[in-house]
């Protein structure tokens, strides 16, 4: 841009009374935001206020409030509020008291009524006091052995009785013994046996034998309490009967020689036991204990405590009141698509064309959403320029060899909002529009000049890598006429008609190329943007692969190339590329497309899998029908039901052979074998 002195024939600046140039009035409004009851002390709400310009003030009914603004969104954060206790459920039932009696326990707990330490009282029965008396008792024993005391228990009286005096014999006598004789009678018959000795011719005593009557050897004495066993004692003998000896005895012959009876009496020691009975007197005091048949019960008041099942929680509630300023009229609600420029390297370039070099009746218009008011070039070809510099927005034209500047304070731009800037010249007046307002005009008759003859660059200086724009751009147009105020109003509503000699609409998917919507098709090329989508491969085999790419929300179709050849154009996100050569690298490029332009392409190289040589299929078993032999060479045939399929995808194409061999025809019992050359194919 040449430096020079502008010739001001007339300069009018239009500003509102507030100093803001917006689309209309900027109003201060009040808004209440209720934060409903929540258990969270810290709460955040985001509200959207269309066309928000800024927050003037903010307050909260309790606690603290903070906020942040992002475009039309206001994020409000409240904290440290006053806790509120609220009932969330349950009920309260007051306590109740009732009088109870006849209860068997000092504690009572029934039907919710509870009492402890109830009063004890006599429910039934009586009490008889203790009685005492002197009691004498005697005890007898067969021995003179008595305990020192005995226990008395009779008629309810009990107690120990002690010996009173010494024991006495009340009957019987002591033990005694004596010798008695001449008692009773018993007898024993006997025979004496003799034996004859022939040598001596004498009879000599051999032995004796007993005969009846038979003796009783013992006798039990029992007389006058004396008892004891007595033994038989010989007393006398009866007359002896002798028997005549036999005549002519032989040696050893026996002979009963004598027979008689022996008489006996009994004698021996007898004794009697001690039969004395002893008596002992006992005496002492016995006691009849007190008798208590009383039954006690309990009485008193039992209380049913209050029941409180109420539940509570602590909640926080806030009401935030804030004043804000917004734009109050339409075009400000315009929502445009755009593309961000990073302010560092990114820009668009439109090839220079004689079409744009009008000497008059020309308008440039551009929608921008700036992030800052620092110095930056919005659009320029070196002769016509819109830029921000020194805190001003400038529209610059080269007229009659001089640089004509029109401008307004950059602070009027709305950061992070869409702003329309338009610059026109009709041969007499140079005008600068901001949104739907004419903000600067200079009257100068002459012709526009294009000394620099540069490409049109959006987003940086056209002559150097400097003055990059940081923000979004949406649309840029060149009209071959000076737009009227009404036309500017139409444009400022977001309606960029394609009536100009060049119109470019930018979106995130036009970062490689923004199509010129006019008939001239002089597209704007983007620089230093990144690819938008990811390209990957799937199902990679030796004869092909499937390509898969991520979709872009603003793309309506995709162009897929292998090398320079277009394989596919459509809105799918996959493409199966086959047949391909095995073990080979293929370079693919995918480009997202829209009606407004196209995105930066993504290129990737994928390699097919190594190939192979193999038989994929051979015929199945087949069976010949049974045949009957006729004694001659016979021919039979059958058809294969399946095909042979061969695959050769090897990169090394050295050819192949399909070969076959059959084993000799052999019987199922393996004993019979046909010779070679029996099976023919």
């Amino acid at each position, binding site marked *: 841009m040449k430096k020079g002195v502008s010739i001001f024939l007339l300069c009018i600046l239009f500003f509102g009374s507030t100093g803001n140039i917006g689309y209309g009035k900027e109003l201060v409004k009040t808004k209440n935001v209720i934060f409903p009851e929540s258990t969270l002390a810290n709460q955040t709400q985001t509200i959207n206020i269309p066309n928000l310009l800024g927050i003037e003030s903010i307050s909260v009914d309790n606690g603290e409030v903070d906020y942040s603004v992002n475009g039309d969104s206001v994020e409000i954060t409240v904290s440290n509020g006053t806790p509120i206790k609220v009932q969330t459920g349950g009920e309260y039932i007051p306590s109740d008291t009732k009088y109870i009696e006849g209860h068997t326990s000092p504690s009572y707990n029934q039907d919710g009524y509870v009492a402890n330490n109830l009063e004890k009282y006599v429910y039934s029965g009586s009490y008889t006091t203790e009685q005492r008396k002197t009691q004498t008792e005697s005890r007898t024993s067969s021995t003179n052995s008595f305990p020192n005391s005995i226990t008395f228990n009779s008629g309810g009286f009990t107690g120990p009785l002690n010996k009173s005096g010494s024991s006495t014999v009340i009957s019987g006598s002591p033990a005694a013994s004596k010798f008695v004789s001449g008692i009773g009678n018993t007898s024993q018959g006997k025979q004496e046996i003799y034996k004859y000795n022939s040598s001596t011719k004498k009879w000599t005593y051999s032995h004796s034998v007993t005969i009846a009557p038979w003796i009783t050897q013992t006798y039990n004495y029992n007389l006058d309490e004396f008892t004891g066993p007595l033994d038989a004692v010989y007393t006398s003998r009866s007359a002896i009967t002798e028997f005549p000896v036999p005549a002519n005895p032989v040696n050893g012959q026996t002979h009963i020689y004598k027979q008689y009876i022996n008489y006996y009496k009994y004698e021996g020691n007898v004794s009697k036991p001690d039969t004395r009975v002893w008596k002992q007197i006992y005496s002492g005091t016995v006691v009849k204990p007190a008798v208590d048949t009383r039954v006690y019960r309990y009485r008193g008041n039992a209380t049913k405590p209050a029941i409180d099942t109420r539940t509570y929680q602590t909640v926080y509630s806030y009401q935030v009141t804030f004043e804000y300023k917004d734009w109050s009229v339409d075009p400000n609600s315009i929502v445009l698509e755009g593309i961000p420029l990073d302010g560092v390297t990114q820009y668009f370039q439109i090839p220079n064309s004689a079409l744009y070099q009008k000497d008059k009746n020309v308008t440039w218009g551009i929608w921008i959403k700036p992030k800052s008011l620092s110095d930056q070039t919005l659009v320029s070809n070196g002769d016509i320029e819109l830029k921000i510099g020194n805190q001003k927005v400038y529209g610059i034209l080269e007229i009659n060899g001089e640089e004509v500047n029109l401008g307004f304070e950059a602070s009027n731009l709305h950061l992070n909002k869409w702003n329309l800037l338009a610059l026109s010249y009709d041969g007499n007046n140079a005008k600068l529009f901001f949104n739907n307002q004419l903000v600067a005009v200079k009257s100068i008759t002459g012709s526009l000049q294009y000394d620099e003859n540069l490409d049109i660059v959006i987003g940086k200086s056209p002559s150097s890598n400097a003055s990059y724009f940081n923000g979004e751009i949406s649309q840029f147009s060149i009209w071959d006429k000076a737009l009227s105020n009404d036309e500017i109003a139409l444009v400022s509503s977001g309606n960029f008609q394609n009536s100009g000699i060049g119109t470019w609409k930018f979106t995130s998917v036009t970062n490689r190329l923004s199509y010129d919507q006019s008939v001239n098709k002089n597209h704007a090329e983007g620089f230093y943007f990144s690819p938008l989508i990811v390209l990957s491969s799937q199902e990679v085999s030796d*004869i092909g692969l499937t390509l898969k790419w991520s979709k872009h929300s603003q793309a309506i179709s995709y162009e897929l190339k292998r090398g320079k050849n277009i394989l596919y154009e459509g809105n799918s996100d996959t493409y199966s590329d086959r*047949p391909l*050569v095995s073990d080979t690298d293929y370079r693919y490029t995918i480009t997202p497309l829209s009606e407004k332009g196209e995105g930066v392409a993504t290129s990737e190289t994928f390699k097919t899998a190594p190939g192979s*040589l*193999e*038989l994929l*299929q*051979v*015929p199945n078993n*087949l069976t*010949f029908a*049974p*045949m009957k*032999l*006729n*004694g*001659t*060479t*016979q*021919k*039979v*045939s*059958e*058809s*294969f039901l399946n*095909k*042979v*399929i*061969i*695959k*050769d*995808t*090897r990169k090394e*194409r*050295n*050819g*192949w*052979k*399909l*070969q*076959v*061999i*059959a*084993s*000799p*025809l*052999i*019987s*199922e*019992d393996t004993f*019979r*074998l*046909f*010779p*070679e*050359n*029996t*099976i*023919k*194919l």
Partner: protein
Amino acid sequence: MSQISGLKGIAPTIVNSEQFIDGQQFITLVSASEETGYGIYEMTFPSNALQLELNPAFAYVRQDGTPLKYQTDINWRVIPN
């Protein structure tokens, strides 16, 4: 012999027909020379392609006159040149 998949290639050559295959050597049915036979091919046999020529001198039945089954194994292979 026809190609059913893969890059369009030059079809291999069928060597000849009607050969005995029960000898001592593999018999080549199809031959693909260099740069041919690339891809996937299927080979369709004509009707009654498999033929038996039975010499009655070797065709036995069971001693009781009942039929006797015979069988053979056919092995296929594809080998590179």
